[in-house]
């Protein structure tokens, strides 16, 4: 499945010296040269990425997608508007977190090592939450692919959305397919330069806006907007803006379907997620073939009895953004955007045949249809259950992990050189570096206490009173303190071992929350 049904065998044919191609294509035309008939125009087009014409190395041929109209085109407009709106507007959404923290809802604050996402916030050492989210995203993609094929590719992938936007811009300045083809064939002149120039400038403007929106995710948006316009933003912001502006222009405006066909790994992988019960955009060959010109009989009606419904008008080919012929079957190049469904339904309405010659269907159903049987769509099957189950499992693990996320952490590092110091009265002291992580959005005070070592004295460097061991940690910060544990000679002899496990406990003075950390207290090996 991974090659999307690309079955081309090019075999040498010494006698004729011609190229012989063996390919499985559903091409049973009544008369390849004939018009569709019924007063409908036949588009003068060959599918540039036609299955039979594909080579291992292909020079790019321009594709001029005609604008489709219909239900799926509408869905695509809506998805495009929604995803672009989210992308451009999200950095400007505010979310109050208290006076000492940024109020941007989604902020990847690299400078201060914090990721903010509405009510969620993670520290760098908690990056596994992001890993978990990516695993969830992958499983959701698997499930969606198993259910309805490349819905991600067809509707929501940024490459698809931005390419669609760039094509819409091209359409706005240069007109639809035929106008664009005419323009390309025209010799260069003022009008052509103006039209092409303004199209490319518009693409670059989209690129700049896209790159511009990206950097807002990494720094307070209103501040950065002021900095960008006044030329005082950090160099890295301009750099990433430029990179994303350039890649948006190149990938969305220029490269388009080449990204999907040659650069993206997902078309190669997704074949492993689909099966015969997956809904795919497909041409129903059994109903459509044999295709060909539709003749009106003497009664002014077409006799559909001995022929297929496909009148070979190629409306499905002209709207295709990747330049394929869907009637060749499931293909790697097909991003399943369903624009050919709209185009074909439009034609079916015009020739008064039922819609759905091209439509979402499963391979199992088509095969059943071919045998004259009926088969239902099966969204619930072992594969989808497995993906859904894995998704739920990982989701549950994430939820449990998040709900148990500690808002207070204590790390203790005992000094290793030297492990202990003998004081003048013979007592032994160990030194520790204690790090307290306050992940709450408020200032907190902690009392540090010691368990498991009776008679030992705890002191904190810089504390005016040796007995005082209260440490204040600012909002969402880490505080590092030096801590000493001193054990008098009497207790030393009582313990009688060279190392002793101890526990340091930080207790929140406000609500009594505790965090404990085990460490070690070392002393000279007792003399026998």
């Amino acid at each position, binding site marked *: 499945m991974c090659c999307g049904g690309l079955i081309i065998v090019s075999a*040498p044919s010494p006698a004729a010296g011609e190229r012989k191609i063996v390919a499985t294509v559903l091409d049973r035309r009544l008369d390849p040269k004939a018009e569709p008939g019924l007063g409908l125009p036949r588009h003068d087009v060959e599918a540039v990425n036609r299955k039979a014409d594909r080579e291992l190395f292909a020079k790019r041929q321009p594709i001029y997608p005609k604008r489709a109209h219909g239900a799926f085109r509408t869905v695509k407009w809506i998805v495009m508007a929604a995803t672009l709106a989210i992308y451009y507007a999200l950095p400007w959404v505010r979310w109050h977190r208290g006076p000492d923290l940024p109020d941007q809802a989604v902020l990847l604050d690299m400078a201060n090592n914090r990721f903010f996402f509405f009510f969620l916030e993670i520290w760098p050492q908690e990056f596994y939450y992001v890993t978990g989210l990516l695993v969830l995203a992958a499983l959701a993609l698997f499930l969606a692919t198993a259910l309805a094929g490349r819905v991600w590719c067809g509707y929501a992938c940024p490459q698809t959305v931005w390419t669609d936007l760039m094509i819409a811009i091209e359409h706005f300045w240069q007109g639809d397919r035929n106008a664009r083809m005419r323009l390309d064939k025209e010799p260069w002149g003022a009008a052509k330069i103006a039209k092409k120039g303004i199209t490319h400038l518009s693409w670059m403007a989209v690129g700049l806006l896209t790159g511009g929106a990206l950097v807002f995710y990494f720094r307070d948006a209103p501040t950065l907007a002021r900095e960008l316009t006044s030329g005082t933003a950090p160099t890295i912001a301009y750099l990433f803006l430029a990179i994303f502006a350039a890649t948006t222009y190149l990938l969305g405006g220029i490269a388009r379907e080449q990204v999907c066909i040659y650069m993206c790994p997902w078309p190669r992988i997704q074949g492993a997620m689909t099966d015969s019960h997956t809904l795919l955009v497909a041409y129903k060959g059994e109903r459509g073939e044999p295709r060909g010109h539709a003749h009106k009989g003497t009664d002014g009606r077409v006799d559909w009895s001995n022929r297929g419904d496909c009148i070979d008008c190629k409306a499905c080919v002209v709207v295709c953004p990747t330049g394929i012929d869907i009637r060749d079957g499931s293909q790697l190049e097909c991003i399943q955007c369903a624009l050919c469904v709209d185009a074909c339904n439009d034609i079916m309405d015009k020739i008064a045949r039922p819609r759905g010659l091209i439509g979402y269907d499963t391979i199992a159903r088509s095969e059943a249809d071919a045998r004259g049987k009926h088969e239902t769509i099966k969204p619930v099957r072992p594969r989808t259950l497995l993906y859904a189950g894995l998704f739920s499992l990982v989701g549950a693990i994430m939820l449990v992990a998040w709900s148990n996320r500690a808002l207070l952490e204590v790390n203790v590092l005992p*000094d290793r050189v*030297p492990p202990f110091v003998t004081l*003048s009265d013979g007592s032994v002291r160990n030194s520790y570096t204690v790090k307290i992580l306050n992940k709450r959005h408020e200032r907190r005070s902690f009392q540090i206490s010691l368990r498991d070592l009776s008679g030992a004295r705890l002191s904190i460097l810089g504390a005016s009173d040796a007995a005082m061991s209260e440490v204040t940690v600012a909002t969402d910060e880490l505080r590092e303190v030096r801590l000493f544990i001193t054990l008098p000679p009497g207790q030393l002899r009582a313990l009688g071992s060279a190392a002793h496990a101890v526990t340091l406990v930080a207790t929140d003075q406000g609500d009594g929350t505790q965090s404990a950390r085990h460490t070690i207290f070392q002393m000279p090996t007792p003399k026998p």
Partner: protein
Amino acid sequence: MSDRRDIDQVTGAETTGHVWDDDIKELNKPLPRWWLLTFYACILWAVGYWIAYPAWPTLTGYTKGTLGYSQRQVVAREVAAASEAQGGLRAQIASLPLADILKNPDLSRFADAAGRAAFAENCAPCHGRGAQGASGYPNLRDDDWLWGGKPEDILQTLRYGIRSEHKQTRVSQMPRFGLDNLLDDKQIFDVAEYVLSISGGTIAKDAAARGALIFKEQCAVCHGDDGKGKLEQGAPNLTDQIWLYGNTIDAIVTSIRTGRGGVMPAWEGRLDPVTLKALAVYVHSLGGGQ
């Protein structure tokens, strides 16, 4: 290569013209144009680079390039920028007394970090990486100080050293009781036993009693009648558990016989005043500071 281009009939592509094993030919597929253009662009870029940047060695140096770029200058600029960024803190450390530095969390944290780095570079060879000392080199983490453990005392020791060549050096000299025949071997043994006894060590009672008399006569003038030492003279406290040269009878006998005393260099002039203050803060923070 023949003049006539050999075209492969199956693919329509040109071949290299060579035939292996009667019928195997290799297609002559040129590199993609974008690849070649990138390659040529890189060559042009390299030529531009030679002109703009330092590139070629010459007999006496190298071509400097028209932009005048130099990695050494970049480093110098970065170092200058870093010290400028530290400027405010360094200026404050230079002007404020140590007590005020220790009270200010930002300043003391900065001084502590600077002191830690300076310590590893300058002090660790004798005092150890963790300032734990060694025989003859004091442990700076404990609470026993020969010349005082207040921040200002530590700073003075750092600046002028101990028995150093500096005019204001801290200096004290334990007499060489044995080598200079001030005491005989038996007397030295007796005093050593007494010294051990006042710090709670094992005692030979008779010897210690004899040693006590000698101690009063010979040692108390510096170490005090009670043996607790005198800070202003750098005379160690002999009653505690901390021994610069060890607490065995042999180590003590050797000290009395030869009058041991180590040398700490004066760091003023070698290290800048801010680093010296930072070192004092760091050493004070190790736990033994008073």
